[in-house]
């Protein structure tokens, strides 16, 4: 607000802890150290947080530089309000395992759906989330 009144700017967010959601679905938490005009972000002491159900796991990643176009949303984290009752932190291996299971389950259901539709003669094109050609 200081720098660009009436506009949205990331300058005031610098050196604060943020959570950023990327286009590929990853969630990063870290201290926002630097920005530029494209909203490229430099995160410090970054942690990738994987959420599966009520559990989450943190993978420390170090320094991240995120290209601005890949950011979905970005929000400041209140440091004081860190601990969360609802979510339960687990180890990295466990959360990765959980994630894998979740992916598997999802794929199964997806497949089942597609076959069901095919049997009925319908085909729904798969939504492409990744914008990759």
């Amino acid at each position, binding site marked *: *607000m*200081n*720098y*660009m*009144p*009436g*506009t949205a*700017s990331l*300058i*005031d967010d*610098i*050196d604060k802890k943020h959570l950023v959601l990327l286009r590929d679905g990853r969630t990063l938490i870290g*201290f926002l*150290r*630097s*920005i*530029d*005009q494209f909203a490229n972000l*430099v995160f*410090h002491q970054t942690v990738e947080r994987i959420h599966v159900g009520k559990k989450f796991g943190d993978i420390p990643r170090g320094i991240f530089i995120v290209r601005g176009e890949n950011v979905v949303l970005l929000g400041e984290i209140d*440091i004081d309000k860190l601990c969360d009752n609802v979510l339960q932190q687990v180890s990295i291996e466990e959360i990765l395992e959980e994630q894998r299971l979740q992916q598997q389950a999802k794929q199964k259901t997806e497949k089942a759906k597609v076959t069901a539709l095919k049997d009925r003669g319908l085909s729904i094109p798969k939504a492409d989330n990744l914008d990759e050609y």
Partner: protein
Amino acid sequence: MFRFQSLDEDCTLEKEEGLVEEEDEIDQFNDDTFGDGAIDDDWQEEHKRLAELEERKNDGLGGLGLGGLGMRGMGGDSSTVQLPPPASRVPHPSSLPPPHHSLSSMPPLGLEEMGGGDLAESLAMLILGADPAIASVGGPAGPGDRSTGLPPPPSMPQQHHHPSQLPSHHQLTLSGLPPGPLHPSLLSYQQHQHLLRRGGAPMPQMNSHNIWENNMGFGPVSVTPGLITQMEDSPLLSIIKEVGLPNRPPPVMSEDGRDLSERAPPPRSSSPVIGSPPVRAVPIGTPPKQPMSHAMNHQQQIHHPTTVHVRAPVHHQHRYPPSFPERISPNTLLNMANSPLCRPPFPAGVGPVLSQIQRAQMLNSQVAGFPRGCQGPPLLPGGGGFRPFFGQPPPHRMGPHHNHIPCPIIRHNTTHLHPQHRRMLTQRMQSRGGERGGRVGDWRSRDPYSNLMTQREKEWVAKIQMMQLQSTDPYLDDYYYQNYFEKMEKRQERDRDGVRKEHTTKLITPQVAKLEHTYRPVQFAGSLGKLTVSSVNNPRKMIDTVVTSRTDDEEKREKQVWNKRRQILYTVEKMYSLLLEVQDFEKRFMQTPEEQREALLEQHKTHTLQLYASLKEKEWDDRVSDEQCLLIMSVRKGKRLISRLIPFLPPLQAATVVMGIARNLTALAKKDKQDQALCWLVEPVAVVISSLSSAALTDLLQELQGSEGQLSKVLQNKFGVTLLYLILSEGERMQSSDLNCQLMDDNRWTELVFSVTRELLNVPPSSLSPPLFTPPNLLSLFSRYVDRQRLELLQEKLQISALSR
């Protein structure tokens, strides 16, 4: 102890001053080229510092710092100074990594100079050299490097040879400088006096007793030049000078300064070239250079002409140093601007800086006044252009500094914020600033990694983002915004019943003048072209289009020429289509059934007639229109056309065509210099000739010889020669085959042949064009008319082989 500088050192210093300029330039270029800090060593130091920070967190510190410091300070110098226990009490200037380059410049000399005299001095120098936060020397290391940086402490006790430079540093603020233990109190009295005179002093963080006893307390302070670069800190500095620095109690030292949270973050600096010309044309993609204190430069120039190349020790966050607390560790003070404990990290109240244009356009200075004096960013006269609005500072921060320094700079965000809007924002910010600042600021001050992004960089990003909003016509670009605030103002005015009329009526409608930045490629003298640098704003020119305007006359003439040609081509095309039809007649004839054949035949005849009609003269049937013929034949296609046409014409008409050709051969030959196209005519013409009667032949020959000198020209043309030979051979054939040939009856033939032979003999061989073929019976022809001698000559010339007929 006070060894005066040797003479040569003096000289080097003076020499250095001249060199400084170049260094500035070079450095500036480097920075521009490679971006911010690319050739900067400081980031390495900083990185190491941070890395060490991490290490230290893990291992715990030993007496590593200073010991290492001591070693590094020597720069590998042999003369190691024993660091006594007091040294260990020096707070670790937050993990000083070995700053090689900067150290090497200073300490060795100093140490040599001092000869290990005063411990304080040496240590002071070491620390100062080691800690870039305090003072770092830019430029090449070496003895000559004195003046470019901190005036090295060892030379302290030396002459004041360079009062010109150093007093300038009085201007420089102290911001990164811990006022307490660093400054005069650390120096012995005499040294301090020298310093004062010279205006510069290193401020080592020493805690030596003999140092402390000379604590100047609130006396005038000499300030390390290396610490200060910012214009914006000058009020602070002057305040300090007036008021003096608070007395720094030794106990702070005894803490070892291990308070990591207060440790100064690694200063990020590159060369703030004081005295360098302001950079005006910085492409948008360039990250900001580290503190470029142009304003500084200007100020200095007023007072001190020489420039000093100084490294900014700290990012210029040090705008609003808090009122000096009792216990400020040196690092905190170094860190002063980093996050003043009671404010949001990025100082509000730094107003935007006007570009010259904006200032010029300003009608009214609606400055949200800075109650605390001018604490804004340096005024960049030419460089900044637009600066975003930075709101207002909390008004009560710098109590002691109130009203000491008038705000010299008027800051405006003239282009975008409606004044009403700005007012609202200011109010909002003020209300928010207090509540937010406390907690956050505290936390920030403990974050050693904070402010990696300097103020400049933030401004730069903001500037880029705001530049997109620049408009020359705010009503056009942002209609609703303007209207909204106008309405709001009107409403307010209504509510207040015009109490504050002066505010509302004076509306600034600032507009940015649209500057035409056309890129003019640079051309060096004597070079063959222009050096073109293409960038986003100046994309490479693929085609260099130049508008050439022709005069009317030329245009008319050109048009006429083109029109004529077009006409000819058109005619040719038409004739061609007819011709093709004629040519295809046979085929079609075969294909059509009997009934329609007659019709087809009729059609065919008409076509042929038409063809001829287009060629012939208007009135006379037996002459081909010369003009027309010429026109058509002037085009290659036309020649081809004629050649294809002739076979289809009835013999009489064909003969006339050939006559026409012969008649105009010179003109045709001129246009057909290469003889390529005309030669197509040979065949059909030959056919025609062979069917000619003798009279016609004679006529033809006569036509060929038509005017004076025509024959010679004809002879130059391949086709002409061939034609001639054809005629002659035909004549010969006639004569030889038909005894009753009428050719001889008419004298014309003989005469003509005579003239031909004459011409043939006279014409130089070079201009005689070789014919397409030489009919064999020419020789016999000539033998009839010429005598032996000439015959032989002719033979030679024409290379006619003597063939017996």
